[in-house]
């Protein structure tokens, strides 16, 4: 049995527009912040995992070393869609678990402000001669002609599919908008969120429609940001100071899954099955169940996505996501607060940073350091990300005993 791994230090930069900072400025700020939070230096780190999606071929990890410390340690540059940050963290955790290092650093960084609509390419002018190309022998662009490739559109269908499978008497548009209303309300307490304005239901529903039922504020915000974490083995932690041990957060489960084949999964991405599998594996590994959770940060890349993950993560009875939401449970004063950070819809979604930033949020509450937005008495938390394609990361974190 591999020994336990702990998060010793963790930080995130402010998410938002950072026109004066490049990728390395953001990555350095997060990495040095995590090292300082951990009370260690680059010299203590035995492995580095660096996540970045938009420049996935740029060896961001080595670039970062060249700014903050070239110590010769192994570097893994990872890219795994929107699960990149969680994958980087898990890479460092696996390395520590395998005994190759007793301390590791994971960084996720993205410059995404102004990136606009993700998914789908600009449609070029049709060719002068129809010629079948690619795996479906298309003679012309299919995005927009055979469904949509855009992220808001794909995730809108994922939410609508849930409404089809679990018919709801109420107005679906309003339901999804209310989920967004919750997250925007939560964001007002998070100084590191990209957007911290409370939005009324009317404002959210009346905003620009992107892909029904997702209006603009119901979509995650493309922005810049970075997050980083230092992980340490149980045996190494015991040699560190009382203060370091007190603030350390136990990684009770670190799970990564991909999408297993299901009928229709190559027609509309199936973000459900791999999340369910990851959650089941994580609960088993941690020896806890959803009823033991005090706090959840889940991948609300769109309001329509948050709903399905209540069910996928087992936060509600099977098929009961709408009732769970309507009960008020996922509000910060509810039974099981979800996305008290403001979620991706307000905090922002600098892709590779997201899967570490959500863990930072959980750690903050477990340590009792979340300030104005502290949820009292948090002992067990879960962080979830989904990268379309697909990859799912689930981490369960627990307060030091």
């Amino acid at each position, binding site marked *: 049995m591999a020994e336990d791994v702990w998060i010793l230090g963790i930080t995130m930069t402010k998410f938002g527009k950072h026109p004066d900072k490049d990728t390395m400025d953001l990555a350095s700020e997060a990495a040095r912040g995590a090292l300082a939070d951990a009370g260690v230096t680059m010299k203590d780190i035995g492995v580095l995992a660096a996540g970045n999606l938009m420049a996935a071929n740029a060896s961001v990890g080595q670039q970062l070393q060249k700014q903050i410390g070239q110590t010769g340690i192994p570097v893994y540059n990872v890219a795994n869609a929107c699960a990149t940050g969680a994958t980087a963290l898990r890479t460092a955790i696996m390395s520590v678990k395998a005994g190759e290092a007793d301390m590791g650093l994971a960084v996720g960084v993205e410059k995404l402000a102004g990136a606009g*609509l993700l998914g*789908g*390419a*600009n*449609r*070029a*002018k*049709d*060719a*002068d*001669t*129809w010629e*079948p190309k690619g*795996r*479906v*022998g*298309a*003679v*012309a*662009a*299919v*995005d*927009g*002609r*055979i*469904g*949509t*490739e*855009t992220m*808001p*559109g794909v995730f*809108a*269908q*994922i939410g*609508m*599919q849930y*409404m*089809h499978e679990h*018919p709801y008497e109420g107005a679906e*548009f309003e339901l999804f908008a209310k989920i967004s209303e919750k997250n925007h309300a939560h964001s007002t307490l998070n100084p590191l969120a990209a957007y911290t304005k409370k939005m009324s239901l009317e404002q959210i529903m009346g905003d*620009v*429609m*992107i*892909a*029904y*039922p*997702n209006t603009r504020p119901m979509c995650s915000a493309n922005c810049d940001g970075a997050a980083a974490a230092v992980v340490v083995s149980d045996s190494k932690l015991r040699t560190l100071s009382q203060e370091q041990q007190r603030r350390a957060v136990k990684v009770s489960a670190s799970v990564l899954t991909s999408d297993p*084949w299901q*009928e*229709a999964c*190559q*027609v*509309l991405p199936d973000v459900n099955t791999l999340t369910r599998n990851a959650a089941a594996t994580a609960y088993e590994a941690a020896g806890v169940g959803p009823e033991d959770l005090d706090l959840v940060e889940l991948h609300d890349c769109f309001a329509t996505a948050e709903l399905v993950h209540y069910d996928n993560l087992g936060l509600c009875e099977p098929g009961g996501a709408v009732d769970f939401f309507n009960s008020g449970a996922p509000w910060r004063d509810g039974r099981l607060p979800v996305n008290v950070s403001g979620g991706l819809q307000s905090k922002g979604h600098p892709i590779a940073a997201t899967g570490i930033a959500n863990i930072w949020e959980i750690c903050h509450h477990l340590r009792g350091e979340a300030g104005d937005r502290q949820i009292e008495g948090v002992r067990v938390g879960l962080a979830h990300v989904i990268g379309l394609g697909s990859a799912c990361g689930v981490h369960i974190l627990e307060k030091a005993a």
Partner: protein
Amino acid sequence: MAGEIPLVDYLVLGDEPHLRASECTACGARFFDRRNACASCGGTDFREVRVPTDGEVRAFTIVSLAAPGIPVPFVAAVVDCDGTSVRGNIVGTEPTPENVRLGMKVRLTTFPIGVDGAGTEAVGFGFTPQEAN
């Protein structure tokens, strides 16, 4: 008459336009793209099967913002054609939430997309609400 060409090779034109899928002979999994092997069971033997043209809307969105060059709004959907899921647009009705419903019965339809320099007409497909809906 320079003839027609389907937008994608899994659209079969002619008197009874329909979609065809590659079905794994071992496990029955269906695919629309050129295959290396079956994603479900790893099998490499496939047969071509005709996908029913009638179906039911299982999920949809009304895309109001798309990449430049793509006309909006349009309805993108997943249609369950008697057990085979198909991606396609809902056409022949206004793209508003009032006109498209989950569970709505639809039927495959084809329409011209454009004519190339040689006079060949490309033909696309979509799903249109069945009558008496």
